[in-house]
């Protein structure tokens, strides 16, 4: 039972890959002039899913996949044009197939109505375009390759380049072929993978049943293969059967091709010498030629060799590397205390260990890294559905699909991105009429891009819509009491209002975006990943949401600071600059309020010790160090700490696992001396303390 479950799980895993390939293939088919191979790949994907599903008795899936496959077969055999009318149905079928697979995986009930509708549509196509149903495999497929007689000329290609056009293959298996367990169908399938194929069965010589002898099957196939592959590739398919069949391969274009090399049932290749026939040598049989490849070539287009490893193992490895980094830090500390840090040998040794630890860490991170493609591909469907629901025409352009991020991040990005995409379709893009008036193409474009940028991953969702209607946003925020009327807000601050909980700018809540979650949830989710969201909007030109994410959730570059006798870590990427408190740049505001003038801005000074309750009285500024930090809402503040003493990579350890969340602290880490240091969350610190300052509403806005 357990075994079966395991196999089934494998099948579903494979399905995911196949579905992904299917979706990609269908998108390629949208483009004019797509490769014929794409159609084949799409067909194969559906076919494989169907096959697997049948093995597990998933009849819903099989029925649907079969019908889907039938239509794809029409496409593949050029009986049906991949025209505008058909492709949307194909896309939706692919979505539906994915749903059915998901339903089967969770043993839940799929959406029957939707499936029925699609089945009906598929049936219509089938009915309109041909005979489709049963004998899928051996229906002679009409291929436009001009006259087919062996010596004949093909219309376009210059004769002579025999390998460029194709072959005519006569294939008549002997009884031995069947006896040895070979299947002509498998061979023909293998041939079909080389290119366009037309198979004709010649059963004329087959004797009537009463006279038929199994020694003389007499079935004969005539195959027209249009391929770019070399003759050797074709021969390779028959490599294991060439001595038990009648095989003739004639090149099409160049009719003068000499008669085949693996021709008449030539019982023996003449290679074996007659010298010692009597000897009971181990080579009495005509040894089949060496096996450079398996008889039917494995599915083409397989990516490089991969293994499936459970995430647990990778995580364990990652944990151990975390320990290694810590131990390395401990070692260097010990060496320092021992006064050996000057010894060049020790320094060199330590350096190389550090380097190695870094390399290992990077490699493991690379194992965990996955291309964002997995997320981006889903977004095509989201756009499609959102476009259907709103009646807008939308095109999704993805850039940088190959950008890799940590696997956990890939999974946790799906929800926020889905929401942002829906949001862009629903709120960002104007309706067709408005777009026409503005002189834009009716079809809106949403661009989803990803790139690595200075140690972070930048993901952008941009639309070419109308931009944020700021007066409107402001009006709504005031109406809802999110911001006091009359407060001066910069355009950037108004944009930030979108991230406030409970904000929804559409007057009528649409079925699409109005699901009770707003952009505030998106922002929270991104922040949980250690990232930030920014908006950039230009009136009538569009809006861009950018998400900046750390590369990994496991390691962080930190500044080690001293605070009330404790060591803490400040994430380096939020630190802008550090300085000694100089009275000339300090200003008091009222009682206790202290400001720092820095680059033309006045920044509040936050005493970190007080925030954490480590001291009761604010420390005198002169003795401390000021660290200017910036939060993702471009808010800046200066944190007062006791001192800075190092900068290094720290391994992030969860506090929540055994304790819970601590306000102002994002996680913990282990230092070189084995002690724990808390990692400060500057974002939360600045936000919580700006609550005490002038504009509570804005703090909320920044807070999300």
């Amino acid at each position, binding site marked *: 039972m357990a075994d079966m479950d395991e196999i089934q799980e494998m099948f579903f895993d494979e399905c995911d890959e196949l579905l992904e390939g299917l979706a990609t293939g269908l998108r390629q088919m949208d483009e004019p002039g797509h490769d014929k191979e794409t159609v084949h790949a799409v067909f194969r994907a559906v076919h494989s899913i169907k096959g697997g599903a049948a093995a597990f008795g998933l009849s819903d899936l099989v029925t649907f996949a079969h019908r889907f496959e039938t239509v794809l077969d029409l496409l593949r055999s050029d009986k049906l044009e991949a025209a505008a009318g058909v492709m949307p149905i194909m896309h939706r079928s692919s979505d539906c197939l994915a749903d059915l697979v998901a339903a089967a995986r969770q043993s839940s009930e799929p959406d029957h109505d939707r499936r029925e509708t699609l089945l009906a549509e598929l049936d219509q196509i089938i009915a309109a375009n041909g005979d489709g149903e049963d004998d899928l495999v051996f229906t002679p497929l009409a291929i436009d390759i001009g006259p087919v007689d062996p010596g004949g000329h093909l219309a376009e290609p210059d004769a002579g380049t025999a390998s460029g056009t194709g072959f005519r293959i006569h294939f008549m298996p002997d009884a031995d072929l069947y006896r040895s367990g070979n299947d002509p169908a498998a061979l023909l399938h293998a041939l079909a993978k080389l290119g366009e194929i037309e198979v004709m069965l010649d059963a004329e010589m087959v004797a009537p049943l009463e006279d038929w002898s199994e020694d003389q099957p007499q079935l004969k196939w005539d195959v027209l293969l249009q391929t770019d592959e070399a003759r050797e590739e074709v021969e390779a398919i028959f490599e294991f059967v060439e001595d038990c069949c009648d095989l003739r391969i004639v090149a099409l274009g160049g009719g003068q091709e000499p008669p085949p090399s693996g021709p008449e049932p030539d019982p023996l290749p003449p290679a074996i010498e007659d010298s010692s026939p009597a000897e009971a040598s181990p080579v009495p049989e005509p040894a089949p030629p060496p096996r450079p490849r398996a008889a039917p070539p494995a599915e083409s287009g397989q990516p490089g060799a991969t293994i499936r490893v459970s995430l647990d193992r990778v995580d364990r490895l990652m*944990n151990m590397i975390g320990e290694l980094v810590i131990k390395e830090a401990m070692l260097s500390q010990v060496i320092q205390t021992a006064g050996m840090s000057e010894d060049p040998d020790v320094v060199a040794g330590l350096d190389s260990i550090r380097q190695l630890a870094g390399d290992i860490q990077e490699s493991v991170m690379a194992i965990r890294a996955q291309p964002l493609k997995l997320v981006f591909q889903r977004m095509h469907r989201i756009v499609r559905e959102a476009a259907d629901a709103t009646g807008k025409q939308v095109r999704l352009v993805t850039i940088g699909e190959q950008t890799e991020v940590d696997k956990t991040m890939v999974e946790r990005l799906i929800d926020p991105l889905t929401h942002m995409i829906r949001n862009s379709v629903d709120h960002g893009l104007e309706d067709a009429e408005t777009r026409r008036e503005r002189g834009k193409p009716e079809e809106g474009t949403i661009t989803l891009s990803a790139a690595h940028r200075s140690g972070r991953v930048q993901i952008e969702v941009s639309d070419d819509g109308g931009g944020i209607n700021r007066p409107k946003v402001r009006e709504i925020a005031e109406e809802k009491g999110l911001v006091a009327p009359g407060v001066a807000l910069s355009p950037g601050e108004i944009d930030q209002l979108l991230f406030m909980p409970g904000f929804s700018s559409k007057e009528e809540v649409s079925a699409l975006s109005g699901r009770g979650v707003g952009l505030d949830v998106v922002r929270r989710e991104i922040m949980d990943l250690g990232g930030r969201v920014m908006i950039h909007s230009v009136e009538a030109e569009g809006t861009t949401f950018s998400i900046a994410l750390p590369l990994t959730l496991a390691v962080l570059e930190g500044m080690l600071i001293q605070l009330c006798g404790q060591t803490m870590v400040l994430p380096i990427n939020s630190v802008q600059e550090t300085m000694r408190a100089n009275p000339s740049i300090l200003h008091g505001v009222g009682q206790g309020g202290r400001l720092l003038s820095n680059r033309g801005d006045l920044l509040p000074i936050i005493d970190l010790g007080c925030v954490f309750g480590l001291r009761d009285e604010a420390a005198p500024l002169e003795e401390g160090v000021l660290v200017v930090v910036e939060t993702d809402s471009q808010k800046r503040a200066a944190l007062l700490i006791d001192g800075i003493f190092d900068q290094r990579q720290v391994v992030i350890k969860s506090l929540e696992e055994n304790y*819970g969340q601590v306000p102002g602290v994002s996680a*913990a880490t282990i230092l070189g001396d084995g002690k724990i240091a808390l990692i400060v969350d500057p974002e939360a610190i600045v936000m919580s303390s700006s609550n005490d300052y002038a504009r509570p509403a804005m703090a909320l806005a920044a807070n999300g």
Partner: protein
Amino acid sequence: MLQSMSPNSVGKSDVVAFKLAEQDFCIDIGLVREIRGWSPTTVLPHAPHYVKGVINLRGSVVTVVDLSARLGFGATEPSQRHVVIIAMHEGRIVGLLADLVSDIVTVNDEHMQAVPDIASDPAREFIIGMITFEDGRILRKIDLAQLLPTPQGGAA
């Protein structure tokens, strides 16, 4: 937790006994992972007064609870001689700071008594039972679930 208990020991269980402010306490041995000497903790901001901080236990972050403070005896000034009992409760690891671990005792369930009604001593809510011995000693059995700080900020 006590799967290892053999069938003939039904009605009996092992407990780890420890001292706290001159009183004897115990917890189920199945909950205890290890016993360590005290090592300085990292203070957690905004933590309840009975949370001493966190220590590094072979790479994981473990909260140390000052049992004495938790039970209302007043905060412990930990020294080298204090012990931290590492216990596992509902998947969370926690360290319990105690004066010293005295014994591992097998107790008969029938010797377990309910806690008598003694007003509202804070210690009472954390004790699930009293185990009496013939020599007059009493072990107070601690309810770990009541004792531990509840996880904050449900996001975890």
